[in-house]
């Protein structure tokens, strides 16, 4: 039994800017480009936009990210819905969810949901962009972190990954299979930054970041923006591009407390979030055709596959061929644009944007033939926050 809201709302417009090492612009500029592309895609006019939800990436923490002033920058004068949202990597799916609820109940007609970020500086490294360079040193117990040598997000995910790997006997070669499989999809994605094919040997030869993570276990850092426009199914039907109907929505936020009563590494919020979204959509794991999973690290993909019930605990790697670089090897229909590992890192908008493309059937050479049910995940913190969207080309 599905919920009555299933298929009643849709993403009717998608704008993806140039991605990656695109210099000379701030996050607002990218946001402006993404909404311009999205209304053009939908066949809308600027004044049709009456809702704006924004999520800055890391530049939001550096003081140069998009926020409420974006309304003035874009000259949006008809807003009936406006907010700055942040549940980290789960935000993109959450923005679409709140927008869908709002349009369904008449609070707005066309809500633009924008993620924009521009942390990369010419001549600077990706690590510098995300490593907290220049931030003030912590005090209190937090000051023990640098004293012990803990730095960066890579460390906390590597710690979670190690626990998962030792528990289930997952090897670095297994993580490499995820990385190589996604790169094969990225080769066919014109939006992707990393399009040269990859082998398992390349994976093993990439430098260590925080063991068990090689460089090629870690997502990219990108400048760019993605805008999705959410409206009712009724309105979406008559617009220029085919809609991605929203079938299911969910969230699950277990938090991350350093205590024995909270397991970290072998669970995530996807379990609760997925159940909620499956119930709304009236589908189960066996119905899913395409997955677009938040893949800040290779490990996160395996964790997410299992939490959505697509494989038993510890068995997600079984969905991947032994050598995904082999052109004869069939790839799982997961992260079909290359994901954050190989295409672009727009936090939760990476899976949402590719999910819209696949649901619409506009994926070109990387399009998955059967794409009736597309499952998208967002994930933030160190598996602390989670959001789910289930998209479909069919209204019902």
């Amino acid at each position, binding site marked *: 039994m599905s919920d009555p809201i299933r298929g009643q709302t849709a993403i009717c417009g998608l704008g993806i800017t140039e991605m990656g090492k695109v210099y000379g612009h701030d996050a607002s500029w990218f946001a402006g480009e993404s909404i311009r592309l999205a209304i053009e895609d939908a066949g809308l006019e600027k004044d049709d936009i009456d809702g704006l939800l924004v999520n800055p990436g890391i530049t939001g923490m550096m003081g140069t990210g998009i926020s409420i002033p974006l309304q003035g920058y874009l000259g949006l004068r008809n807003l009936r819905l406006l907010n700055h949202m942040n549940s980290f990597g789960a935000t993109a799916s959450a923005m679409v969810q709140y927008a869908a609820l709002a349009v369904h109940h008449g609070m707005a007609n066309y809500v633009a949901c924008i993620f924009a970020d521009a942390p990369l500086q010419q001549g600077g490294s990706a*690590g510098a962009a995300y*490593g*907290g360079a220049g931030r003030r*040193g*912590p*005090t*209190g*117990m*937090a*000051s*023990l*972190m*640098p*004293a*012990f*040598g*803990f*730095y*960066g997000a*890579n*460390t906390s995910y*590597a*710690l*979670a990954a*190690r*626990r998962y790997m*030792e*528990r289930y006997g997952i090897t670095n070669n297994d993580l490499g299979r995820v990385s190589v499989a996604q790169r094969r999809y990225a080769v066919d994605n014109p939006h992707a930054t990393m399009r040269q094919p990859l082998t398992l040997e390349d994976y093993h030869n990439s*430098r*260590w*970041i*925080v*063991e*068990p993570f090689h460089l090629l276990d870690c997502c990219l850092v990108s400048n760019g923006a993605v805008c999705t426009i959410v409206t009712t199914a009724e309105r979406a039907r008559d617009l220029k591009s085919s809609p991605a109907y929203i079938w299911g929505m969910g969230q699950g936020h277990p938090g991350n*407390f*350093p*205590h*024995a*009563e909270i397991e*970290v*590494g072998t669970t995530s919020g996807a379990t609760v979030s997925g159940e909620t979204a499956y119930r709304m959509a009236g589908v189960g794991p066996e119905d899913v055709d395409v997955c677009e999973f938040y893949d800040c690290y290779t490990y996160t993909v395996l964790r997410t596959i299992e939490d959505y019930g697509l494989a038993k605990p510890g068995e997600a790697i079984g969905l991947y061929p032994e050598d995904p670089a082999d052109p004869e090897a069939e790839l799982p229909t997961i992260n079909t644009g290359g994901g954050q590992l190989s295409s672009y890192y727009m936090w939760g908008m990476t899976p949402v944007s590719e999910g819209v493309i696949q649901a619409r059937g506009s994926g070109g050479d990387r399009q998955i033939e059967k794409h009736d049910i597309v499952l998208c995940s967002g994930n933030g913190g160190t598996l602390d926050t989670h959001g789910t969207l289930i998209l479909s080309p069919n209204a019902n």
Partner: protein
Amino acid sequence: MAYDKPLPSPDENTQPFFDGLREHKLLLQYFPSADHYQYPYSDRCYKDWSTDWEWRESSGNGEVYTWVRMHQLYHPSWKEEIPYTLAVVQLDEGPRMNTNLVNVEVDDIRVGMRVKVVFEDVTDEHTLPKFEPV
């Protein structure tokens, strides 16, 4: 050579914890109403929201919850150490601590391995709680 790595910077609330380390004691916050040990410092118990607590000395016993080898250099003082081992230790009292493992070969480290605290007096002013195999 003088110790040049980042040093802890105690604040008003956590000064007793850092004073405890100098005396080679690992102190945890204990909240009696929920019978709950908490770390790192908070002014409120996250179980029952009580604000009534006391410092209690930990047994210092626990097990390796997870661990990694750090290869990235964020601060120049770690240059000679890289790659170095970072770990999360599950204390028997319940809280988990981020720390370093010492007196162990990398190949011998396992999740679940029993460890106990050792106090490293890195300067006259500062002591760090690290862990070694039992």
